[in-house]
């Protein structure tokens, strides 16, 4: 681990352009131990008063330092935004969720093994170095929005649910602003090292949830073992039915791209329709139209399709749950 300075912030003013923010540290510390990230200075914001969940308009404001486990267990979240609670509980382990924060969860880095391995070329670690994952072991890589410069996925489950809920990220800094979840993470393009719209000196202070979406909410995560594994694919679904037809739907996908993935066109396509396997398969095909595999991860295309169908069958009441 490279030497660094450590400063415990007493106010947001302590967040400076040159320092790397640490809160729960569940990902950053690992990255520093491997020297994948080598910040000179850390500013620890975990003592700031950003750990409350409070009403905001008809929705909720979730402080950036609310722990994942607290957020998942919050009674209002469980009642009004169950997809978020379920997504959180599908991620990591109890110990990690106890440390990990809401803001940090959004900013965690990919778990691409080539990113973690300094012997391997990685454009995220070293812009312009190339991507060793392409042509390597790609089983867990992206099928949507990837480029030959980077095929990494974003590992968060929480972010997938937030996207389906139309959450907004509160960014503070020189120019405080609100960023829609859909716009917060960036696809790799030719600059995979730039992962979000956050500028130096900016900090996430809260996530704002709009009024409860209602309907049926599901988070379905398919992974290689029953717990503590990153998603092969995941689906966050919010589905409302009216007179046997889908009246509103929001669908977001994890494990398939460098950001939580959403396809509004597919949601419009489903709206007003009576649920059927054919309908769901057609929606999946819409979403997967731009999908491509990079070798071993080709299966994710079929897996995403199947998982979406299963999730929608469940959310629309077509499936008998065992």
């Amino acid at each position: 681990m490279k030497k660094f300075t450590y400063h415990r912030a007493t106010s947001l003013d302590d967040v400076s352009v040159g320092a790397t923010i640490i809160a729960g540290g569940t990902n950053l510390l690992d990255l520093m131990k491997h020297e994948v990230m080598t910040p000179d200075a850390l500013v620890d914001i975990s003592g700031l008063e950003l750990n409350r969940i409070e009403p905001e308009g008809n929705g909720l404001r979730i402080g950036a330092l609310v722990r994942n486990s607290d957020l998942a267990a919050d009674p209002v979240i469980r009642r009004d935004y169950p997809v978020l609670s379920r997504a959180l509980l599908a991620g990591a382990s109890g110990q990690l969720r106890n440390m990990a924060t809401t803001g940090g969860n959004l900013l965690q880095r990919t778990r691409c093994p080539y990113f973690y391995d300094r012997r391997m070329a990685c454009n995220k670690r070293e812009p312009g170095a190339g991507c060793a994952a392409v042509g390597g072991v790609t089983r867990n890589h992206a099928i949507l929005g990837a480029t030959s410069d980077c095929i990494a996925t974003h590992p968060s489950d929480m972010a997938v649910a937030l996207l389906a809920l139309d959450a907004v990220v509160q960014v503070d800094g020189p120019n405080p602003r609100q960023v829609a979840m859909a716009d917060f993470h960036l696809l790799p393009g030719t600059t995979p090292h730039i992962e979000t719209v956050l500028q130096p000196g900016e900090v996430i202070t809260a996530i704002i949830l709009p009024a409860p979406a209602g309907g049926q909410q599901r988070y379905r995560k398919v992974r290689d073992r029953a717990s503590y594994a990153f998603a092969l694919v995941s689906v966050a679904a919010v589905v409302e039915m009216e007179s046997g037809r889908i009246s509103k739907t929001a669908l977001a996908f994890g494990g398939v791209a460098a950001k939580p993935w959403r396809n509004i066109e597919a949601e419009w396509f489903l709206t007003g329709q009576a649920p059927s396997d054919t309908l769901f398969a057609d929606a999946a095909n819409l979403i997967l139209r731009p999908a491509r595999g990079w070798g071993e991860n080709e299966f994710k295309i079929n897996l995403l399709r199947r998982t979406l169908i299963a999730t929608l069958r469940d959310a629309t009441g077509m499936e008998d749950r065992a």
Partner: protein
Amino acid sequence: MTRHLKVDAPDYDNRLDHMAQGVLGQPLNRLEGPLKVTGRAAYAAEVRPDGLAYGVLVQATIPAGKVLEIGDAPGALAVIHDPRMIRYAAQGMDQKGPKPGPDAVEYMGQAIALVVADSFEAATHAAQNLSVRYAANDVPVDPNTVEAEMPRDKQSATGDLDQAMDHATFTVDQIWHTPSQAAAAMEPHAAVAEWDGDQLTIRAGLQMLSSNRAQLADALGIKHDKLRVLAPYVGGGFGSKLGINAEAVAAAIAAKQLGRPVKVAMTRQQVFDLAHRRSETQQRVRLACDADGHMTGIGHDVLVSNLPETKFSEPVTQATPFTYEAAHREIVHAVARVHRSCAGSVRAPGEAVGVTVFECAMDELAEVAGVDPVELRLRNIPDNEPVTGRPYSSNKLAEALRVGAERFGWSKRAATGSRVQGEWLIGMGVAAAVRVNMLIESRAKVTLRPDGRAVVETDMTDIGTGTYTILGQLAAEMLGLSIDCVEVRLGDTAFPPAAGSGGSFGAASSGGSVYLACEQIRRQIAAVMDCNETDLTMQDGVARAGNVSRPLADVIDGPVSAEGHLEPGKTEKSVRQATWGSHWAEVAVNRWTGEVRVRRMLGVFACGRVLNEKTARSQCLGGMTFGIGIALTEAMEHDPRDGHTVSRDLAEYHIPCHADVPSLEVHFLPERDAYVGPLQAKGLGELGICGAGAAVLNAIYNACGVRVRDLPATPDKIIDGLDP
């Protein structure tokens, strides 16, 4: 006094059954359990002698070639770059060190140097940023791209298998693949080396101390008696600590050079690179049977890999020659020389993957022959070992199958794909469990004191298996003491050399030597009591002969010590020794996502005498869990271009975790095996793995009709076979 026994003849006396204390076999908690759960049991990396310096291994970043130059490490005490450093770990029971010369790189990740600093962080930083210049070679890393070696002594054939296949009513001829697997012990490998003049002490996580001492002494060029190895607590081995590894050799060299103790602890990633992997396997299984399901042909044709010039190759077919009857048999064993990390013994080498695949093939044969899978196995259990005609020391396979079928509710198994619960397809599977049984020379010293306390000393290790407890129970039983009155001291080469922990032979081998030492003490007490040892009863600190009872203090006036020395003898060859059992699994397969959830498993095992029902059961639970891993989750991925291990931590290498492991039931068949030594106890640690994965895979087929022959059975391997 030493009591020596070479196991040349069967022993039907079952002396342990005639002891009076009643502590052996009891489900006692581990004696050292409280020390472990309160953090007081110091593992190697937790030892911090005064003046300790920290070493971090530097790893090769090329798959093969030569180290030309190593740069300086600012902020470090030293860069150790010594020709004695080893290229890969020793294999179990080697008496010499593994190949030295770290400058010749044989695989990516090989240790090539050690950076030592005053802190672990500083050493890590310097090691991560050390500049190394190489001359790289192009080398093969994929076993399918090279012409494999065919070691002559590993091929065998009887009859004419091709003809048997041609003439059979039913056949199976399929190819399976299993990936490289990691031992993945919880405790990463670590060593602390400390010199006192020319006397070296090494504390390390190791499984077999007497051979580890020989390997280290050879690697370092010092005499055995100048080296003491300590491993009182080992956080799991699973084969990965059978032989010494790079960290121990490097720590000893650095400590000598710097004149201060040095600790080298591997990171988890380094463990994945440097600990032996289980070789990936390609297995073609050919089975032939007649219309009645009597097998006529068995072929098991395997391809494994290892580095050039290494001896070990995964003994995949170890149980194939003696599990089932067939007149025509063929075993082919090919070894591809590739530059992936070194392959070695990992959890039940051979049977873990060999029996698993073979038992999947048996399930396929049962299906094509229209015979129930349990019945097919029952019909083909030989009376004696095929080909050699040797008798089995015991063979409880039939009983394990019958008892298991009853306990598991096998009769409720439905037709393939017919049992549906919501999104889930439910199925049941069965497999035989079989593992060779071994005994290894072992010594132990036992001392009984007049105050009714005893001490057991041996360089045996307890790698989390319960050795402390069972050796204590054996001494307590033999000497008539409560378990609290026995102290067991392990993991120190200053004590008599034992078998060590490996190959499931530890309990019977080391336990046998404790038994013999106690038997010698009993003889001395019997002499005082003026009776035959067989007429002596020892219980609760009292010696009794006929109607004379005397407390120990009246019988001995000072400590009485004896050494037990057990050696394998003629029964090793005169009979086929193995442990037997059956595995049963019920799984649910998601009809959409192909996710598999194991719902319940049962293992029925016959392993001779059970020494502690709790630790024995725990061993089996662990084995069955690893079986789930082999079937469903575990795979070391190698980069196709340079062979490096891509999945290098426990988030990427998936050991089944709690949510993957349902209710597991373990049932032991009562057994005494007369041929296996004075305890009538056989190896158990690995039996639980052997075949367990096949029960899961066969259950998947029963659930959804998909045969996964490319392990593990992750969702991607299943969805293509499910209805759209």
